[in-house]
Structures are given as C-alpha cells and as structure tokens.
C-alpha cells in the first residue's frame, strides 16, 4: 500500500501496463515529454521511449482515429483527450467507428484493445469548456464501455481492468479530484470489475446513486440526512455502460426510494436512463418518485457555478422530499 493521489494512481496503472505489454502506447496532446497537462503520463516517455509515449498533433479526431487503427492492428492504444469538453471532434470516430468495429465486421476485426482516458467534470471554475461531464452522450452507444472512478484506489483498479478489457472503453477521470483525492493504493497489480456497481454504504430508507466525483457530494448529503435519522444506501455505479441494473434494483427494492445525482445537465442525462429502468424494475416497490439531482439544463457557467451544480444541499433537500413524499 502507498499513499497516492488520483493522478498518481492513474500514472501507476499506466506504468504497470506499459511495463508488461510491449504493444501498449500512451499518446495525446502534450502527453509525451511533458507528461500531459495534468501530468498523468509523467515519466512514461523517459521510461518507455518516444515511440510508445508521445505528443500527437492537436487533432482529437486524429488521435482517436489513429488509436482505432492501432487497436485493430493488435496494439494496445491508451489515448488521452486533454479535456472531456474536447472529445466531440472525435465523436464520429468513437460512436460510428470504435463502437461498431466488431459488430459491422462480424468480428473479423475489433478495437477491443482501445482505451480513451479523459478528465471530466466541474467545480474548478472552468466554465463552459473545462467542466463538462459528457458521459451520457456516449451512453446511447452499444459497443462502448464507459467507466468512471471516484478515488485513487478505483482509478488504478478500474483503469487496469479497462485497458485489459477486450472492448473499447471511455474512461472518465474526475479532474477535480486529481490531486484532492488521496488514499491508500496497493502498489501491486490489481483490477476492479467492470460492469459492477459498488455499495459504499448500506442503508434502509433511500438509495443514493452517483458516479465519479459526485459521490463525495452525495456522501456529504447522506451525512446531513443521517443527522435527521435518515438511513441512506450509497451506490457508486462505477461503470455507466453496460451498467449494473441488478445491484441498483435490489437496493431500491429494499429501500423503496431512489435518488440519482449527476454533474451533467438533467435532460437526457444518464440519470434519466437509470430512472426509466428502475421505475420499471421496481415499480411496486417505489414509495416515491425517483429523484434526479443534476446540473441545470444550461451550458456550464462560470460565476454562477455554485448555483448551477448539484451540490450536497440540493441533494439533501431531494432526500427529504423523497422521504416525506
């Protein structure tokens, strides 16, 4: 075990993979010598050479196109998109190519070895273009896996699992926690399962569901609620696609209530998918409507960020609303 922050955990996972797998490559804008603008790939070029860890030209559609080609060829590309807000120029390569590569070819070819890492999320005074949480844009795309860790331990274990998983994975890293989240992380190799949610705290009155950086906020709200005598079960979804319906549904069957919180805007976010599925799975068990506590249906603002975000007070209010329904 060692103390690591989330960035160090990511860096450590990449190091393990680069060491064990000659065909693993890390690349993206400023990823090479400099180690990325957040320094997630720090030291890797020095250790594994410029051929395997390098800067790319500034073109996201090219980064992912290049990565798709490498993956199809049998290499293990780990591509970085500098900010999730800048992943959209690569949307076609991800949604029409990565996700459909295996299916359209009848498994003659696949890009299962592809992993896309990208920092997402707000709370850093980043405004419209350094704060987005675009996971839902990808969640409508069969063929992709989508993974979001919430702390250093998960970051390492889930990233290792994502890289080794034989499907293209979009791995969203909560950048607000890059340095803020510090914890004990095993130095050795380990993996956490994809597609499995994590029950962080058991409770009886309401299920609170979130992923990534939002869990910190949810925990705070749960603490506040527990002071009122409300017992919250907290679930970290961890994998957005394909998601762990069973764990969530079992919990809701027990608690009778569900609140989903996400950083992204409410409308057509992934919380909506969860609500839609759970109202069906748990119809007879639900004692109140499923609450979604999300970002406003606006672009991500700067000076009104506090007002915009799904903070612990809004979640706390929604918990009470649900309980008192």
């Amino acid at each position, binding site marked *: 075990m060692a103390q690591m922050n989330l960035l160090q955990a990511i860096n450590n996972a990449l190091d393990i993979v680069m060491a064990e797998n000659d*065909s693993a*490559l890390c690349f993206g804008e400023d990823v090479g010598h400099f180690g990325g603008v957040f320094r997630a790939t720090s030291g890797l070029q020095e250790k594994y050479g410029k*051929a*395997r860890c*390098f800067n*790319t*030209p500034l*073109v996201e*559609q*090219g980064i*992912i*196109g*290049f*990565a*798709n*080609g*490498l*993956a*199809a*060829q*049998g*290499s293990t*590309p780990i591509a970085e998109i500098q900010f999730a807000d800048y992943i959209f*120029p690569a949307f*076609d*390569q991800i949604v*029409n*190519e990565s996700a*459909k590569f*295996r*299916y*359209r*070819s*009848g*498994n*003659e*070819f*696949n890009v*299962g070895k592809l992993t896309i890492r990208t920092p997402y999320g707000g709370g850093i005074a980043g405004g419209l273009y350094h704060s987005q949480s675009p996971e839902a844009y990808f969640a409508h795309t*069969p*063929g992709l*896996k989508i993974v979001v860790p919430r702390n250093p331990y998960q970051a390492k274990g889930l990233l290792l699992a994502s890289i080794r998983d*034989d*499907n293209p994975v979009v791995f969203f890293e909560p950048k607000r926690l890059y340095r803020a989240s510090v914890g004990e992380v095993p130095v050795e190799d380990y993996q956490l399962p994809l*597609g499995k949610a994590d029950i962080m705290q058991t409770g009886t009155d309401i299920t609170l569901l979130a992923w990534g950086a939002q869990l910190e906020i949810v925990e705070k709200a749960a603490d506040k609620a527990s002071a009122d005598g409300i017992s919250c079960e907290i679930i970290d979804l961890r994998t957005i696609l*394909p998601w762990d*319906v*069973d764990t969530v549904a079992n919990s809701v069957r027990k608690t009778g209530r569900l609140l989903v919180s996400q950083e992204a805007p409410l409308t057509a976010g992934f919380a909506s998918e969860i609500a839609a599925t759970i109202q069906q799975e748990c119809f007879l068990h639900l004692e109140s409507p499923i609450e979604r506590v999300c970002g406003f249906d606006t672009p991500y603002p700067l000076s009104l960020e506090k007002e915009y975000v799904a903070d612990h007070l809004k979640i706390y209010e929604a918990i009470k609303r649900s309980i008192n329904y």
Partner: protein
Amino acid sequence: MQGLQQEKAMNTEIYKESQVVHTPTFIDGHSVEIPILKILKEDGTVYSGAELPEIDQVKATKVYKALAFHRVLDERMVAAQRQGRVSFYMAALGEEAASVGGAAGLEDQDMIMAQYREQGALIYRGFSLENLMNQMFSNEKDLGKGRQMPIHYGSSELNYMTISSPLGTQIPQAAGYAYGQKLQGKDAVTICYFGEGAASEGDFHAGLNMAAVHRAPVIFFCRNNGYAISTPSDEQYVGNGIASRGVGYGIKTIRIDGNDILAVLKATQTARSYALAEQKPVIIEAMSYRLGAHSTSDDPSGYRTKEEEEKWHMHDPILRMKNWMLAQKWWDETQETELYEKLREQVLAAVKVAEKIDKPPVEDLVTDVYDQVPAHLQKQLDELKVHIKKYPEAYPFTAGRIK
C-alpha cells in the same frame, strides 16, 4: 529514381532560413508543378524510356484476370440489382486499375484499408466469389454476418479491413495501423484508399498529418475519379488535385494516370519500398473517372452529359492492359473470349447459390456488440425469441430456427 533519394528533413526553423523578401510575395496553387506518371499508352505500347514495374507473365495474367473478374462482377451485380435480387451495388467501371494495381504492388501481409470502390484489391487478394456473394446477399455465410449493406466486404485472413460507410474514417486509422506495424517491426505497410471527395473530410487532414509526424509506413492512395456522387471535383476543391496537399504535409507524393495499370503498379511498388525503408508515408493520386453511376441508387444523367462520359470510355484501363498483354504475346483473343464466358457463368451461378442461403440466425443480432454478450442484451434476445415464437409469420427469416 528521382525524388526518392533519402530526403533531408524539412527544416522547421523557417524563421531564420527562408528567402527574405521586402514586398508582399504570395504562393498559391500554381507554386508547385505536379508531373503525372504514365507508362502504358492506350494502344498497349510502352512510352519510350519508361521505367517498368516488376511484373512477369504470371503476375500480369493474375492482374489481368482480376480486372476481368471485377468488370464482369460489376456488370452482373448491377443487373442483379435491377432485377431486385440484391438491394444495392457499387461498380468501379473505368477505374478498376487503381484497386487491382494497388493490391498487385503490395505484399499479402500489407493491410488494405479501402473506401468502398476497391473490390478490385480484394479480388486480387483472392477473396472467393462465394464470399463476395455471401456478403452481398447478407446471408448466414457472410463473414460480416449480414450486418452491413452490400459491398461492405472485409477479411481478416486477407488483411482487407471491413469497409465502413462513414467517409474518411479509415484515413487516420490507417496511420495508426501502419504505426503499429512499424512498432512491431513488421515487414508490412498499410495502403489506405479514398476518393477525392472523402479527402475533404477532417479525418483526411488528421490522418495525413499524423502519419507524417509519426512516420507511419502508409500509402495514401487517392482515387481521383472526378466525382463525389453528383459533385464534380471542381466544386470539391480548387487546388491542384489532392497531390498538391502533399507539399503541406511534407509527404512524398506522386500523381499517376490511374487508368494505366503499369503506372499504378510502378507507383505502388516504389511507394511500398520507400514507406518501408524510410518508415514514412507516401501519397499516390491516381487520376481517373467514375464511368458508371455512383451506386445503383444514383442516375448520373441528372448531373453530367453523355458526351463527357463518352470521352472517358477511350481510357478504359482494362482494354489498355489487354492491348499490352496481346503485344507481349502473354494473352490472345481465344483466351479472352473463354475467360469472359467462364466468368459470366460463374458469377451467375454464384448469385443463384448465395440468394438461397439462409439469413443469419437471430442470435447474431446481439453477438459482437461486445466481446461477450452482456446480460442486458441476453435479456433483450430472450424476450425477442419468445415474441417471435408468438408471431412467427412476422419474422420469416428467423422464426423457423428458434429453439
């Protein structure tokens, strides 16, 4: 070979080294001369002084037969589409030399990443008539499991990447594929075909620049056939074709007569050696003309004249090669007649077989989305099976086979 010596690296410290001027001096589309490589004349003789590609009678015959097969297949399948036997088809009439000649200039271990009008390369590689047909009839023997529209072939065994409809996406992919080949020390390059229309996509810019910067051994092969559906190339770009862009990427570039099979072969062979030796990309721009319709859904009379098309019939690449083969005494008219007769029969027979083969089983709906069928898809499939059993007449292709 002019232009193929180990070049000096482009100096990027231009600020201090350029020629200095004190009055505004512009460059433009005319600032570079782009010669065009021609080896074979229409009459089947070779230009004097022309440097021939590596080719002997065996190889020439293989190339020629692939061309003939391609021509016949296109002819028959366009007809089959008109008869409603197949839903869609895309012919490459008049530009078959680009794909067949490109493949012939490569080795079998080289990866071919095509756009969609390069069935010639797959034919040359030896994809069977049955496989072609099974794909077009999307039956259960299709390697692609009947999921894509006709002509979206692919074969892992033959290193021919499955075709994808979105244009240009294969261009940066080819750069990545070739980079992987290089990294793993393979004696192999990647060829990436695309049309002059697709070259307008952002992915083109991305792919060429990435290949240049990261020195990927990829041959970017542009089929400039003058049209992108109804859009003529002068509404696609106003520079000097696609070749002139090579200057900007710092990529070695050659323009060739795309209907001259020997020029295609020569350029591809030269490009391959260069790409492999230097671990760098090359651009080939093959000038040709799309003599047929864009696809069976298209009717070119809406946007161009018969006269324009007429002019191009003269440049038929297959006839030109035939003339050369005859002149070489590697071929004669009896062989010609026999070949075409046999091919027509074979293709017709293959259609009849393929159209009777079952569609893929219902399980194929959910496989290959992921490496394994995840729980939610298994559930969707199970529910579907129950549903189909309830309404078998509504799902005639699969109902009979559900257990």
